[in-house]
């Protein structure tokens, strides 16, 4: 009975996850195609315009560029699936080994930013709904409008200028290393985490406000009000259970933005994460590294989107309790 009652929801979730995996597979093709088939020869790019034909041919053979594209793709994909991301052209080092500590650094930074940004955005979103059309709401939406228009590096250097240079409270460059004490690490990433928080905060808050407002304007909230419930009870019993899914959705989507925002922020603070790694190797035209990091970013992004959808499915009472 229990199982059969749950089955449509399980089916939907399975569907969504399968779709996500398929999408990831297609994205890997797209990333591969984007770096291989477009005009521009990798070996030429590495060696420069003045390279001799022999040197070019040697490099082409070494990189396996003479094989057809689909063989190269499957070779690459096979490697990715077994945890082997290939070898960097520039440094001749294994990408996986270099990447893992940087991935960890990036996720740590994003996680710290999220732990501040998510509760803050939800609280501010709730405040904006509570005092709708009032001064607080106007201030919050004004702040949101402004901060979605600001480039990350403007916020970043403004903070560095005042907090690192003028006031000298925090370091302007985030050096972290393995085995660094936790508090020191937190101090090092305080500024980049703040910038990231500010970058996603406005958007997350605006969307949270819209999601909650949507629930608060439903007819069943009016019903609750006409039962004589207190505001706090209305929110706890009637608004919250219905708002949780859209809010989780909003949070996940914004975490996905946050992952992208990381790239610029890491460059600003010279933070040894994936973003900086990617940017460095794009300018060096180190294609294997770009492919690997691009795929990981895309995977995290798609993963967060899947979580957002699954959360929405689970929280939908119509799916949880089918007819």
């Amino acid at each position, binding site marked *: 009975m229990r199982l059969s009652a749950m089955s449509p929801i399980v089916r939907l979730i399975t569907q969504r996850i399968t779709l996500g995996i398929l999408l990831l597979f297609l994205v890997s093709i797209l990333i591969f195609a984007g770096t291989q088939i477009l005009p521009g020869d990798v070996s030429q790019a590495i060696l420069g315009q003045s390279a001799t034909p022999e040197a070019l041919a040697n490099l082409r053979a070494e990189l396996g560029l003479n094989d057809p594209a689909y063989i190269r793709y499957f070779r690459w994909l096979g490697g990715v699936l077994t945890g082997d991301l290939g070898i960097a052209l520039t440094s001749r080092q294994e990408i996986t080994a270099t990447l893992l500590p940087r991935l960890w650094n990036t996720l740590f930074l994003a996680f710290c930013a999220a732990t501040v940004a998510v509760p803050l955005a939800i609280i501010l979103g709730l405040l904006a709904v509570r005092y709708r059309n009032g001064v607080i709401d106007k201030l919050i939406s004004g702040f949101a409008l402004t901060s979605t228009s600001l480039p990350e590096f403007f916020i970043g250097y403004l903070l560095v200028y005042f907090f690192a240079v003028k006031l000298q409270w925090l370091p302007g460059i985030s050096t972290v290393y393995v085995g660094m004490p936790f508090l020191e690490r937190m101090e090092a990433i305080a500024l980049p985490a703040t910038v990231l928080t500010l970058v996603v905060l406005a958007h997350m808050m605006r969307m949270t406000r819209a999601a909650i407002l949507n629930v608060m304007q439903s*007819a069943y909230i009016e*019903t609750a009000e006409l039962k004589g419930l207190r505001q706090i009870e209305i929110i706890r019993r009637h608004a919250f259970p219905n708002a949780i899914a859209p809010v989780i959705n909003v949070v996940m989507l914004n975490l996905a933005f946050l992952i992208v925002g990381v790239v610029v922020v890491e460059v600003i603070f010279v933070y040894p994460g994936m973003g900086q790694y990617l940017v460095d190797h794009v300018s060096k035209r180190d294609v294997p590294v770009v492919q690997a990091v691009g795929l990981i970013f895309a995977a995290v992004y798609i993963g967060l989107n899947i979580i957002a959808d699954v959360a929405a499915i689970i929280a939908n009472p119509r799916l949880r309790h089918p007819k």
Partner: protein
Amino acid sequence: MPKAVMKRPHDESCSLLEIRKLRIEATSYSPGGAPQNTVIVDDVSLKLEKGRVLGLIGESGAGKSTIGLASMGYGRGGVRITGGEVLLNGRNILAGGVQGLRKVRGNKVCYVAQSAAAAFNPALRLMEQVIESALLHRVATRAEAERRAMALFKKLGLPNPETIGRRYPHQVSGGQLQRVMTAMALCSEPDLIVFDEPTTALDVTTQIDVLAAIKDAIRDTGVAALYITHDLAVVAQVSDEIMVLRHGKMVEHGETRQIIEAPRMDYTKALVSIRSIEHEEKKPTTKPLLSVRNIIAGYGGGAVKVLQDVSVDVRPGQTLAVVGESGSGKSTLARVITGLLPPLSGSITFAGRTLTPRLADRSRDDLRELQMIYQMADVAMNPRQTVGTIIGRPLEFYFGMRGCERNARVAELLEEIEMGKGFVDRYPAELSGGQKQRVCIARALAAKPKLIICDEVTSALDPLVADGILKLLLRLQKIEEVAYLFITHDLATVKAIADSIAVMYRGKVVRYGPKTEVLTPPFDAYTDLLLSSAPEIELGWLENAIKGRRMESAGN
């Protein structure tokens, strides 16, 4: 179930509910513009004694719902009570502040909304929501409240009264939800219930059951009620007295019998006489204009069959009314005839020619001679085109008319639909609901059609406006000799306009023939149910109708 003992000392000299000189205003914010104030209700007073039912009736915008909610001290959206008093058991609830209002709401006054489907929290089981206010106001313990709720479910005729409370709102049909909402209102044993159009969203055969259930429940519990509706026939069945409202002001107030049998004001008289259009049925001619034969149609490549073996005829210059409830397939029939949905099998002949199944293959004359008018006039017209363009386009398109010739004909058509030349440059948003529908009629007429398909053209309109549209259509039929295929769910409309009738039920035509024949017994079971369910402005109609029924309605 006897009413619980009143705990508070009750002063017999004052009414249960008394509203004095109520004034309600609303502020609307248009983006960028200054806020605008409008008066929604002005100087309305009423008194309601214990156990009585007062019907509030009026068109949309009459302020009837607003008054109903004001009796709970509640204003929807930007609505504010700016003047007057609302006395409940002699105490002004508006003076008690938020705390005081909370003690009244869900305790002494309860509310039943138009759309129960939206008014229930989708994430909570029905029982939780039904007993919520009884627990909140400490009227009963949980066990007591649940027992009471089950008794109410049973009294309201809900299936499985012991277990239905464990279901979620989306697991229960619309008609049943409306009863659960009534049970929810009754559960805390209030003195007064506000019913806000509780049956309007339901199909006609479901409406009668819910109406009867509500009426019984009111009688047996002795609760007083404000019953809000736009349908005089409905309110006549349940209320002891009726107040007629218009533009936020009171027009007339009296006992139900007086209002429907001897109305004093002109507006009330118009409302009462609304469905008495005189229309003499034309005798069927031999040769049909449109002949639909054995149509089978459906969606998803025949996976879902919506029409099963449908055959009907429309005679030149006459009206065939197709009646049925939602889901009967009547609108699908229109889509098949227009070619928007090619049928799986069957044929359609029109003016002696066989129509191709697909719209794209039809000749321009076929398209011209078969026009359509829609239910929602405001989305049937391009909001960026003026009335002149809307009516003028068929003239250009079919007859190649240009310039003065076209403008003259547009003016003529506007004359025909009883609108002046001044409307040529108006946009649809600048017209009232009735005017919009008239422009749509003119657009159809501009093509000089032989047949117009009218899809629920009056059901979105207020009764008086709808009446005007029906009269216009009948007059135009005489002048232009155009035939109508009139799709509707409303039997009163059918009686007013049809020459022949086809009754549809679940994709089949269950009864078909000239009007008098179809409306004369013996009936088949469904037609009987449909005919007996259409409310009439007559005292005691509901009891007789329920007594005489043979078939359970589809909503149960």
